[in-house]
């Protein structure tokens, strides 16, 4: 592990009883959902992680507890280090507290998180879908959401396929 990261990881471990693992010089710290706001506030204020580079999730369906990992990728410009925080979330009613008060970029990223995975961010100021239309059913990046496809139309079956194509018609 990077020498500059050691005291930071130790600090989180002591204060939040977190676990961590390492892969290809990247450090992933696991914390509980209810601690995430405090962890990020600590990292931003005490350890100079100014930038929330990415906020996303990963779905481990059919595993239920935890089904998701919410991932917060942080960068420190001053110290030139990165750190990944992972938050396990259960599948039955996936929820994490919003971090928009810590990083404003989380506003759109959490809307995307809800849109794509259906993970609710409690206390979010603007909880609408962001990429998909408002009336979409389901959350596309979940592993149990089927990947759609387009039926190719040829001259001999153009009309037949056209009848069941789901696009707007006159």
């Amino acid at each position: 592990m990077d020498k500059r990261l050691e005291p930071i990881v130790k600090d989180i471990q002591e204060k939040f009883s977190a676990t961590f693992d390492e892969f290809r010089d990247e450090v992933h710290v696991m914390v509980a959902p209810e601690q995430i706001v405090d962890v990020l506030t600590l990292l931003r204020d005490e350890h100079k992680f100014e930038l929330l580079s990415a906020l996303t999730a990963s779905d481990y369906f059919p595993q239920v507890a935890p089904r998701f990992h919410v991932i917060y990728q942080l960068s420190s410009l001053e110290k030139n280090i990165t750190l990944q925080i992972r938050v396990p979330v259960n599948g039955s009613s996936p929820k994490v507290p919003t971090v928009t008060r810590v990083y404003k970029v989380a506003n759109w990223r959490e809307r995307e998180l809800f849109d794509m995975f259906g993970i609710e961010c409690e206390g979010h100021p603007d909880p609408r879908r962001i990429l998909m239309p408002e009336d979409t059913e389901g959350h596309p990046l979940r592993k149990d959401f089927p990947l759609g496809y387009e039926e190719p139309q040829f001259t001999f079956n153009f009309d037949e396929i056209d009848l069941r194509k789901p696009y707007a018609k006159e």
Partner: protein
Amino acid sequence: MSQIEEVNVDQFKHLVSERALTGETMLLNMGPQHPSTHGVLRLLLELDGEIVVNCIPDIGFLHTGIEKNMEAKTYQKAEVMTDRLDYMNTMGNNLSYIMAVEKLVDLDVPPRAQALRVILVELQRIASHLVWLGTSGLDLGAMSMFLYCFREREQILDIFELVSGQRMMTTYIRPGGVWRDVPVEFEKAVRDFIKIFPKRIDEYESLLTKNPLFVDRMVDIGYLSKETALSYGVTGPVLRASGVNWDLRKARPYMGYEQYDFNVPTRTEGDTYARYVVRIDELRESLKIVEQALNKLPMGLVHSQNRKFVPPPRSEIGTSMEALIHHFKLWTEGFPAPKNSVYSAIESPRGELGMYLEGDGGPKPHRIHLRTPSFDNLGVIPEIVKGHLVADLVAILASIDIVLGDIDR
């Protein structure tokens, strides 16, 4: 025909001011079909006369589910999807994705391939900035800029066609190296470009940099402070124009960027004009990198010799059974990657282009997340346009340099 619905204020109650509810201010759509939104972007504006009170961006019109599609393909096949992401920066997208794959499976890249990647990615940066310069000139009424910029961009696209066979959707950078070595004409084509381009930048600058009409539209418009920029996750030239010296090519050098001598242009004004100056300076710096990389372009192989990930050359397949098996396995099954995750990022023309890549032990990615710079850079728009005229909004939007394919993915 679907019904045309009026914009419902109730839906945006928490985003607009109280004056919009009484009808004192007006809600107006800008886009999705509007030439200066640079794609299919809808901005819902709350206007008091011509002053923007609130701006609510509505994105997702170009959402094509690239992340979902990539999860259903093998690591090699998923690469073509990255070209379609930010179509002004195809080489950069390829590089970012391939770097993540190489990090995940721990694959080496020979020095010649690294240098070629640097040359092409920097040329791509120049091409991308040229499109930005041309279109933002167009937005501000400098019509002829567009024609001049596209003239030079054409030359870069010709170089791409020379090396990859494609002008835009290149897919030239592959796991462990590049697709194939560059043809002999490559060096001359790049040298020609290096020779003419500095004069062309001077030409652009003589048209715009001190032009009072242009400067008046840009100075003190759309001020973005350092703290706001960082909190909103803004990266790239926009962040550097706000006084933060942060460039991943310097901070975490990849592909041997540490060997090249270049500066990171920064400004402290944080306005639209500062963003313009930073990008113009970047054109010169990128050209410096291209020239240095071309001068010391090492000879040798252009892909790794690790046959578990890189297909063998055609000549070997006819004579070696092992090569045939490797080739067959690679193109039918793909290569497996460990069950773990990596995050790798490059400096794209628009900012930090990051890839979160997670393997599941098989040949397909379990999860890939594209951290695209335009998405976060657009998020700061509502903050910086408040109190400006609608015409200034066009200038600000142009200076942020968004690509909708990059935002919607």
